């Protein structure tokens, strides 16, 4: 009886969730719910452009979480893989004139190759030294991108072609949303799936105990390269999508800060789980907007405080985020996903107790 009820409940939850995900872009685009116009703060001061960019970032965050959270390889070079994807898309799409879909594939392959090269130091060095090798990689890739851009494209940026798939042009945010959503779902489902099977399990084993993994017949060195290739291929794909979404990219946008933001996302969301990567990207990218919206709307605070908050809004947002990361690191190493898990576990324990 309870199982029946819970399965019906679950089905209902899924239906509502899917309905929500499919309807949200229209709400954000027209700012109306079933014909009724809604206030900005009702929608938490969010826009569809933010959501689209968030979808791209989810792909990046999830792939970094696969590398860092699941395989234990800390990388500050994730922005570099985005740059590799954008560079490959520029070369394939603009210089060779390949169609959009083909450039995405080219970017993915280029990312995989770059990932293997970036992973080579992992054969020799561990931990901190490896982090530094990815740092070096970042600067080297950005340098190469800049030289490539100045040599073959405009100094102001590489102009990308139209994103057209079978005559269907992605020229507004709603179309992009429905184009990106399947990518996100596919990437998350694929990563989740492989983590439960033979080699994915080996990845987790390698993270937890490298020697025991090797003694179980896992070639940790090969596996590391594979994970690197896999993760960077996905990140490159996201980079190419981002380049097309922007319509023009420049080497200057791939900063170390971008890479650090990806790390912050997985820390906030929770290391080593796909859900953590998603949650982290959502919080990291949407919270500033919500915070800004609320500080502007805040009229309950005394005048001086409100004025101070509004006057120093950008700094207050940065401060909040720095503190958020520090507090989560100290009090909840599992991030938001970990908090949710322990909350659910407590709930079920209480439930069974009653």
């Amino acid at each position, binding site marked *: 009886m309870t199982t029946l009820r819970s399965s019906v409940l679950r089905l209902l939850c899924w239906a509502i969730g899917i309905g929500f995900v499919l309807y949200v872009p229209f709400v954000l685009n027209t700012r109306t719910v079933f014909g009724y116009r809604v206030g900005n703060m009702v929608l938490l001061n969010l826009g569809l452009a933010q959501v689209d960019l968030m979808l791209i970032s989810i792909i990046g965050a999830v792939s970094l979480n696969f590398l*860092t959270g699941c395989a234990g390889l*800390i990388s500050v070079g994730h922005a570099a893989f985005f740059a590799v994807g954008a560079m490959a898309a520029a070369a394939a799409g603009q210089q060779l004139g390949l169609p959009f879909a083909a450039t995405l594939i080219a970017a993915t392959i280029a990312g995989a190759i770059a990932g293997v090269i970036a992973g*080579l*130091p992992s054969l*020799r*060095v561990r*931990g*901190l*030294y490896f*982090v*530094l*090798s990815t*740092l*070096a*990689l970042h*600067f*080297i890739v*950005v*340098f190469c991108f*800049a030289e490539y851009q100045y040599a073959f494209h405009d100094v102001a940026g590489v102009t990308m072609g139209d994103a057209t798939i079978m005559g269907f042009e992605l020229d507004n945010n709603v179309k992009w949303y429905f184009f990106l959503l399947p990518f996100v779902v596919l990437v998350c489902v694929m990563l989740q799936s492989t983590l439960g099977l033979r080699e994915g399990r080996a990845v987790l084993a390698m993270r937890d105990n490298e*020697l025991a993994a090797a003694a179980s017949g896992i070639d940790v060195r090969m596996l590391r390269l594979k994970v690197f290739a896999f993760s960077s291929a996905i990140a490159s794909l996201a980079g190419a999508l981002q380049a097309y979404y922007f319509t023009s990219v420049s080497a200057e946008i791939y900063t170390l800060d971008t890479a*650090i933001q990806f*790390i*912050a996302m997985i*820390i906030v969301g929770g*290391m080593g789980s796909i859900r953590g990567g998603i949650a982290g990207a959502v919080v990291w990218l949407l919270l500033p907007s919500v915070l800004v919206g609320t500080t502007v709307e805040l009229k309950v605070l005394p005048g001086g405080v409100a004025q101070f908050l509004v006057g*120093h809004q950008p*700094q*207050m947002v*940065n*401060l909040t*985020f*720095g*503190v958020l*990361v*520090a507090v989560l*690191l*100290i009090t909840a*190493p599992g991030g938001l996903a970990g908090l949710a898990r322990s909350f659910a576990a407590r709930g079920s324990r209480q439930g069974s107790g009653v």
Partner: protein
Amino acid sequence: MLMQFLASGFMLGSVYGLVALGFAAIYKATRVFNFAQGMLMATGAYLAVTGSVVLGLPLVGTIAFVVVAAGTLGVVIQWLLIRPLAGRPLLAMVMITIALSIILRALIVIIFGGGAQTLRLGLPEGSFVLGSVRISAIHATAAGVSWLCMALFMVFFRFSKAGLLMRATADSHEAAVLSGVNVNRINATAWALGTILAAIGGVFLGQLQVASVELENIGLLALPAVVIGGLQSIPGAIIGGLLVGLIEQLSSGYISPKARDIFVYVPLLIILLVRPWGLFGERELGRV
């Protein structure tokens, strides 16, 4: 030309070496790889602004203020952020220092505004000629003070009791705990020293240009400097800083300023692959 590049590279490298030394002190004692070192350096420049402009202190007073404030800041950081994370994985340690730099940056901008601040401490200006090389007084002062601080640190590290304990803790954390060393106090001392060294570097870089949060990016050069020199080696950090300064000047002078990234980070990558323990570090023997 070459001599001039070498001279300016040496002087710049001395300041980098100072910041890198602070970095190495923190790493050696507490095993924390401090990505906030650049921001601590920028904080030093703003502390000098506070001392000289806001409080109107004379040069000596400002320097005393910077040292005391930076030391306190280091202790507070260790107590508030680093101690609760003891024994946690590498990424947590790396990330907490990044969070620290975000927080410091936001606080500085809230307090001082986003614009740059002029820092005039009344240090000697002008320049003099030494052989075929022209040296500015401020560069020479910066290099001189850097070497003085480095020497003081080495003396402290080698001969004082706290330095001895610090070295003991660096060699074996467990052994230090077992023999009754107050590891927390040692770690706090290391953070205080590291912050002070970074802050002094920041005072000079702020004096060479202006005090701004963007100094962080220059301070981050301490990272490759330390690794090229060897993470475990205190003299290595200084030499690494010098090398980065020289590489920067020579590559800008003879090739292009952008080439600096390549000439700093490609050798870094090669060193990581061939000699991960750095040019002057000692090989750590792995054991199952």
